[in-house]
């Protein structure tokens, strides 16, 4: 600061050479303005990539369809419809149920893997993590198709069971059902569970575990009283990372869901496609967003409470 104030004093007597622009002056004076300047690329992307589109979505959701165009008088009619017509609520519930089950399954399956790497692998941990996430380097679409091959009528599971003589005819329910969607989601999103779980388990201070053992806890009690509560942040993060995007998933139910496995994402796509009702599609997207936010909040509060009771 001393350096910058020096020339100012020198020019105090003479008229200022060139008046600095107000913007520059603001930048020089205020620290927060400098901070915003540094963040501006991100802020710009946030504004134009998220805030503006969201606002557009909000406005469209208040319009109504009129033939091929829109009636632009603002109304809550679409929100009313999304509440009263059973199809929207039912598909919303089904989506929450499917992605809820998929989330629980993924976290349960990935926890042991992350646990093993965090506590029992001592060399080349990075390698293990990369190997675990290796399947996720392939395209999401390819993984979904791979499951179609595995679960299919003449697929790996059915032909395996048939050649083992366990079943006479292929199991039809494996493909084109909510089950197929849950299985695929649970596999396709595993990487998003392994990484946060691993990070939170890795951070646990091993001396706490030793202390628990010294104080007489067996392996089970030690796990439930020390390891699990301390890894809760990872569990919560993993659950959010999976539950939020899978609820609105489109491609998995479209390819594997069949008539009974359709989810809210498919319905939203239809509104922008064949049904040609963009305002309704916008409304459903926003309602879905609100529901996810509400559920996430409840989940967060419950886990806080439970965690508070354990520790």
């Amino acid at each position, binding site marked *: 600061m001393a350096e910058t104030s020096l020339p100012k004093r020198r020019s105090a007597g003479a008229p200022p050479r060139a008046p600095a622009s107000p913007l520059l002056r603001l930048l020089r004076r205020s620290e927060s303005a400098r901070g915003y300047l540094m963040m501006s690329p991100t802020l710009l992307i946030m504004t134009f990539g998220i805030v503006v589109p969201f606002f557009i979505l909000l406005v469209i959701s208040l319009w109504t369809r009129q*033939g091929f165009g829109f009636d632009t008088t603002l109304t809550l009619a679409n929100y009313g419809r999304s509440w009263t017509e*059973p199809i929207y609520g039912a598909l919303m519930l089904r989506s929450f149920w499917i992605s809820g089950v998929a989330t629980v399954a993924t976290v349960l399956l990935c926890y042991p893997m992350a646990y093993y790497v965090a506590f029992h692998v001592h060399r080349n941990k990075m390698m293990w993590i990369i190997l675990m996430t290796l399947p996720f380097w392939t395209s999401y679409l390819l993984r979904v198709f791979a499951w179609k091959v595995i679960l299919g*009528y003449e697929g790996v599971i059915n032909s395996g069971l048939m050649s083992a003589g366990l079943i006479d005819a*292929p199991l*039809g329910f494996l493909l084109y059902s909510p089950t197929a969607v849950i299985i695929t989601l649970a596999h396709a999103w595993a990487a998003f569970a392994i990484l946060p779980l691993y990070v939170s388990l890795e951070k646990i201070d091993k001396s706490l575990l030793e202390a628990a053992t010294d104080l007489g806890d067996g392996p089970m009690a030690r796990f439930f009283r020390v390891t699990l509560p301390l890894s809760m942040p990872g569990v919560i993060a993993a659950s959010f990372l999976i539950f939020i995007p899978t609820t609105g998933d489109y491609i998995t139910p479209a390819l594997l869901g069949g*008539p009974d496995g359709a989810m809210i994402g498919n319905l939203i796509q239809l509104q922008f496609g064949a049904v040609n009702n963009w305002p309704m599609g916008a409304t459903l997207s926003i309602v879905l967003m609100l529901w996810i936010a509400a559920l996430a909040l409840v989940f967060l509060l419950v886990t806080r409470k439970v965690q508070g009771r354990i520790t």
Partner: protein
Amino acid sequence: MDILDQLGAVREGKLSRRKFTKGLLAAGVAMTTVPLPARRALAAEGDQATYFTWGGYDIPELFGPYQEKNGALPNFAIFGGSEEALTKMRGGFVVDVSHPCNQSMPRWVQTGLFQPIDTARVANWGDVIPELVDLPGNDPEAGKVWMAPFDWGQTSVTYRTDLVEIEGEESWDILWDERYSGRLGSLASGGDAWWCGAIKAGVDFASIDTPEAFDKIAAVMREQRPLIRLYTDDTTTLEQALSAGEMVASMTWNSSAVLLQAEGIPVKFAKPKEGALTWVCGVMIHKDAPNLDRAYDVIDSLLSVETGHFMINDWGYGHSNSKAFDQFDEETLAGLGLSKNPVEILNAGHFQQPQTQEWETRMNELFEQIKAGF
């Protein structure tokens, strides 16, 4: 740092995290830079026309003359139903040529997104069967048409002759037969399925735009829904399911049955006693088509005898070029359910009729609800 060295290090467990990351970085750089020349080569042939069409029409066999002239295939964009296609183009997707059917053509014209086709610029125009051009609404001005007819055919039931028991005449009832619950398939687009539902419900197409018709058709569609294993616009999925026996019967177009028969699968394309659904599809040019000359090349290629021969022989569709039929005898054509005189076939079935946008939207909305189980 050569690869063998790295592999050795991995084996001995000596590879440090930093070295490993470095290796990964190198691999990543290599992967992204290697295909660069290949990508540039693709970009060089860039300016081809874009053809926005039904899934399955994106194959080289239909574009022999186009390829000869322009050295590459046109670019393809795919849709599953014509309503979906129109919505996309209304949303600002610009293509050169698209592929609607007679039923939706007047509505496509109404959107103002298309330009009339100058028939003088289409070399094969002289051989086009006039009855296929003369459709309601296809007359913008003298010497021009909105839609150049390309293919025509039927929507009916393809069934496994060894797995489906037919009593008496073939009928749409196959797709409503509870004995085959969970082993029936259907096209997902209302543009086909709803009209087939109308035939099954006994609704005359002239009165399809009435509340009673909506109720009647919705009732039969709801009755059918629990029996259906899959609604899809992906004909390959339906064909594979039929060939595996996963499905015993499905609503399809001509091509599925012909393709499966060529594979030696015992299937038949039914001639239902209630009549099949018949349609004529064609091509239209977008008003802002960026490659207008090549758009005409696409049309010429589709209307050529060469393409027509493939369409008839390999897919069992009717074609709009009368000369394309010359290489087939009456018997072969009859076996495919075709004839040199398309009007005969089209009128023997139920020919789709243009409807208003309100009808189309309402129908799609209702049908999607039914498919979702409501």
